[in-house]
C-alpha cells in the first residue's frame, strides 16, 4: 500500500472514533509515522474550576489518540493498533482558552510492537505542556513493507 494511502486509512479511522469526535480532535498533518492532532479548548474538559485549566486526562486522551495515529500511518503499515502502555509527564498546566496540539512520532516498529514518543503543546510551543512515551500493539501477521 502506498504511504499516502496508509495515511488516508489511518486518518479515516481516527476521525471515526466517537470519543475523538466528541472532543473535537482534528488532524494538522499525518503521514510517514508522524501525526499531529489538535483539540480545541472546551469548558467541559476543565479539571480545576478555580483556574479553568483542562484536566490532564483530556491531554492523555489526545496523546493516546495521536500515538495510535502515528503507529497506523507508519510506512510499515502495522494496521490497527491498541495501546499497551502510555507514560505521560506533565511539565506545566495548559493555558486556559488555548487549543492543545499533540505531535507523535512512531520511531520504531517490530513484528509485534510499535514505539511512540509524543509532546503536547499549547500556543507557547517552546515550552511543552506534556510529553509521553508509549508502546502499541501491531496487528498479528502484518506484511513487511512492499511484501
Amino acid at each position, binding site marked *: 500500500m502506498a504511504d499516502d494511502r496508509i495515511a488516508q486509512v489511518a486518518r479515516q479511522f481516527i476521525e471515526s472514533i466517537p*470519543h*475523538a469526535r466528541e472532543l473535537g480532535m482534528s488532524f494538522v498533518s499525518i503521514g510517514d509515522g508522524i501525526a499531529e492532532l489538535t483539540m480545541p479548548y472546551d469548558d467541559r*474538559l476543565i479539571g*480545576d*474550576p478555580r483556574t479553568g485549566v483542562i484536566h490532564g486526562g483530556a491531554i*492523555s486522551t489526545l496523546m*493516546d*489518540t495521536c500515538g495510535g495515529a502515528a503507529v497506523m500511518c507508519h510506512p510499515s503499515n502495522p494496521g490497527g493498533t*491498541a495501546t499497551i502502555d*502510555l507514560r505521560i509527564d506533565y511539565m506545566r498546566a495548559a493555558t486556559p482558552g488555548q487549543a492543545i496540539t499533540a505531535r507523535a512520532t512512531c520511531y520504531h516498529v517490530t513484528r509485534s510492537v510499535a514505539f511512540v514518543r509524543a509532546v503536547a503543546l499549547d500556543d507557547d510551543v517552546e515550552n511543552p505542556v506534556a510529553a509521553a512515551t508509549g508502546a502499541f500493539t501491531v496487528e498479528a501477521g502484518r506484511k513487511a513493507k512492499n511484501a
Partner: protein
Amino acid sequence: MRKQPEPVQIVKERRDKTLAALVEGIPYLQFLGIEFERHGDELTAILRYDDKLIGNPILPALHGGVTAAFLETTAIIELGWQRLWREMESGRITAEGLDPADLPRMPKTIDFTVDYLRSGLPRDAYARARVTRSGRRYASVHVEAWQDNRSRLYAQATGHFMMPPEADPSDG
C-alpha cells in the same frame, strides 16, 4: 466521662456532602460520567458507560485515553479525599456551605503510567486507588480498574503527584 458517639446520619451526611463538594465541582468528571461510592473512608470510582466514550468503534472498546483519565482522576480524588478526611473529622472544615472554592487545592500530576491489560468493554468500569506513599510534597499512587471481575483488571496505573501545601490550622 466518655464522649457519646455522633448519630450515624450526622456522620454520614457530613462525609457524603464533603465528598460531593470534592467531586461535583470538576466539569471533566461530569463530562466523562465519573462518580464515587464511599464506604467509610474507602472510595470506589465508577465510570458510567456512554457511547461517547468509545475509542475503537469496530471492537467496540473504551478509548484508552478515557481509561487513563478515569485512573488519573481516581488517584487525584483519593489523595484529595484523604487530606480532606483528616480536616473534616478534626472539625477544621465543615460540610455546611462547603464551596468548591473553599476546598484545599488538588494535587498536581507529575507523571502517570497506564498499563492496558485488556480492552475496555462497552460497559461500566470501576477503580480504586492505593496511596503507596504520601509525603509532605510528593505522593505515589497505584490504581487498579476492572469491569466484570474485581480480580481481572482491565487496566492499572502508577503515578506521582505534587501535594499542595497543607493548610495551616493556625491560619484563620
